[in-house]
């Protein structure tokens, strides 16, 4: 085998190893993606079952106002609790 042929053979081996490594990375990436999607599907089960798309829902007229109202109510409740704690001396 000539030096050139040996060099070519080594280059082929090196490229094959690189391909195998990239393939391995691809499998790992696919595994991660699959896991993320599967976990999301598991988490969304009840929303999916009830056909609720929260993004779609929050785009509807009044949704932002409703959210604002809930936040306001929660803010008032928090303040009341805080005041109650102050008055009763509870931690």
């Amino acid at each position, binding site marked *: 085998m000539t030096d050139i042929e040996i060099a070519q053979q080594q280059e082929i081996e090196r490229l*094959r190893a690189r*391909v*195998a490594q990239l*393939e391995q990375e*691809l*499998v790992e990436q*696919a*595994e991660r*993606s*699959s*896991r993320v*999607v*599967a976990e999301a*599907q*598991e*988490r*969304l*089960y009840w*929303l*999916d*079952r009830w*056909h609720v798309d929260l993004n779609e829902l929050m785009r509807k007229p009044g949704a932002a106002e409703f959210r604002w109202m809930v936040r306001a109510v929660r803010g008032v409740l928090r303040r009341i609790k805080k005041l109650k704690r102050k008055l009763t001396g509870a931690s």
Partner: protein
Amino acid sequence: MSRVTAVIPVKDGERYLEELLSAVRREQVDELLVIDSGSRDRSVAIARAAGATVIEIPPAEFGHGRTRNLGAERAGGELIWFLTQDATPVEGSLAAYRAVFSDERIGVAYGPHLPRPETSPMIARELSEFFDGFAAPGGGVAVQHRGDPTFLSNVNACYRRACWEQVHFRDLPYSEDQAFGRDALAAGWLKAYVPEAAVLHAHDYGPLEFMRRYFDEYRGLRVTQGHVEAVRPLEMALWVGSRTKADLRWMSEQGLPLGERLRWTARATVHHGGRRVFAALGSRAERIPAPLRRQLSLERRDDAPQAVALPDAAPALPPAVRVPARRGQEDYEDAARVLRDGPAPLLDPIPGMADRERLRIAMIVPPWRRGSGGHNTLFQLMSRLERRGHVCSIWVTDLYGEFKSFWPGVLRRQVNEWFAPFDGPVHYGFGDWAGADVVLATGWQTVHPTLLLEGVRARAYVVNDHEPEFFPTSTESRLADDTYRHGLHCIAASPWLRDLLIDRYGASADAFQLGVDHELYRPLDVVRRDDTVVYYARHSTDRRAVPIGLMALEELHRRRPDTRIVLFGTDRPPLTSFPYDNLGILSPAQLGTLYNEATVGLCLSLTNFSLMPKEMLACGLPCVELAGVSAESIFGPDGPLELAPLEPQALAAAIERLLDDRAEWERRSRQGIEFVASHTWDVATDEVEAGIRHALAEREQTAAQR
């Protein structure tokens, strides 16, 4: 701009004629022709005063088609606008017609008839609704082609001279316009409905005059269209009721006072009822004596439909029903794409990929039902492939939209709860498709969509059965047959099926043995009866040969009336000539109990061997199956299964042998348990994984040969 001649046939039409001619002049026609057929009122004088050219003909010479042909011959315009003596054009009518005729393909156009203020509500409503139906979406001009509605009305219609010269009016006593509409479309002309080209038009007849008019109209329709009005009293009563209700609604919308509404409701009922009766009489006028015909006719004519000979009396077609597009695509578009363009190209193989430890495996499945045996096989395999480290995903292809209401989270949960644990994602459709090392088609419906997927190194086909046999000769049987001819490496669910795929289709194929869940199907601590035959009688699945099975049980019952026969697998118990106990559809655990309690099992398959006999054997229950199909390829000719030909007496004899011969029963039971012990889902997964690697290796070999 095209010259327009207005042609108006007249007889005793003074009531609206002056108003009409004045409106026609306002529309700026170039020529005005009035053809009078014996008026005894002021019609001729009014026409002359309005500057019209009057052609007078004897009343006997009048014919709706004939007289209009005469008018068209005498007209000098390129457009000929026919109006009746009681149709007053609204402003802009002629301009609307002129605009439409700028399209040279249009031979004839017509416009709506608007109700005059004094028009009765039923006629006003009908006119409005009737003409609204012709308008294009949005209410604009509608161009009608061959196959579209042929309706045309000479109350208000405009003709291109070239079209009239080619088609001419037929010499008919009535409905010459309808015939022209049909003939013009057949000759390749287009017809247009022009909503802006309206006329005020009233038929303010009394109730009886209306009926007589309908008699004439339907006598004409019989001649031109062959229409015979159906006489079905109940349907007629319902029709009259629905029309009267529509009139009431319309009157309410128009704001008529209550008293008016009540008065017109009574009149409307009489009107619609009379219309149906006189329509039926008119379309059967030939059966009525001539003097009576004359009395029933508003025009006092006594002619009968069959007396009129049509120039080319082709059978009339029924009115076409326009069906709008309701689906995004047809069922088998993917198959059509594959047949037309071929499969998507595969990615180049990578040396050594068949031996790689971890593969990206995507399985394409059709929609499932709870308890589906085929899907259980597929998901048991995928569950185990995933546990071996492969990156697995499931993709649902839903040809008929059965799963369109299920979102992916629900599908994934169903796979886990109904079939086997699966950690990977479940996708609906291929919107998120990102490629795979191997894509596995499963049912026949999945193969063509699979062939179109890109970013794939190899394709394989898990074949559970020979599916073309599931269908009579049909699109489905042909497409199922086609699935074996695209070079997918087949992984068949029995050696029999593998051999069939190789012999009949020249496919490359491996086989796997269906696994048994030995946790569920095993000898249990249940007292086994010695008089019970259990039969899987799923008659909705044709390949189960249920009629033969029932005849076998009928024969068994005749021979042994005391033997208890139990049917399961169907929630619709079949009607039989023998008594039996029906258990309906059972859960896997309940099946395990049943197989442990029964004496003999009967389960038939006309195609590939199914899992059920194996599950019976795993419980120690000897089972009778069909000889000469697929069972021998798994068990051999004298294995644990009792095989019998597809003949009721032979099947009954085989069951009886197992019931009578205790030693034989013991031998079959013992052999069955031993034989099936090695048939596990893990072994099946080994075989399927080998098949998948074989598919990849074949790709490498093919590439190496190139």
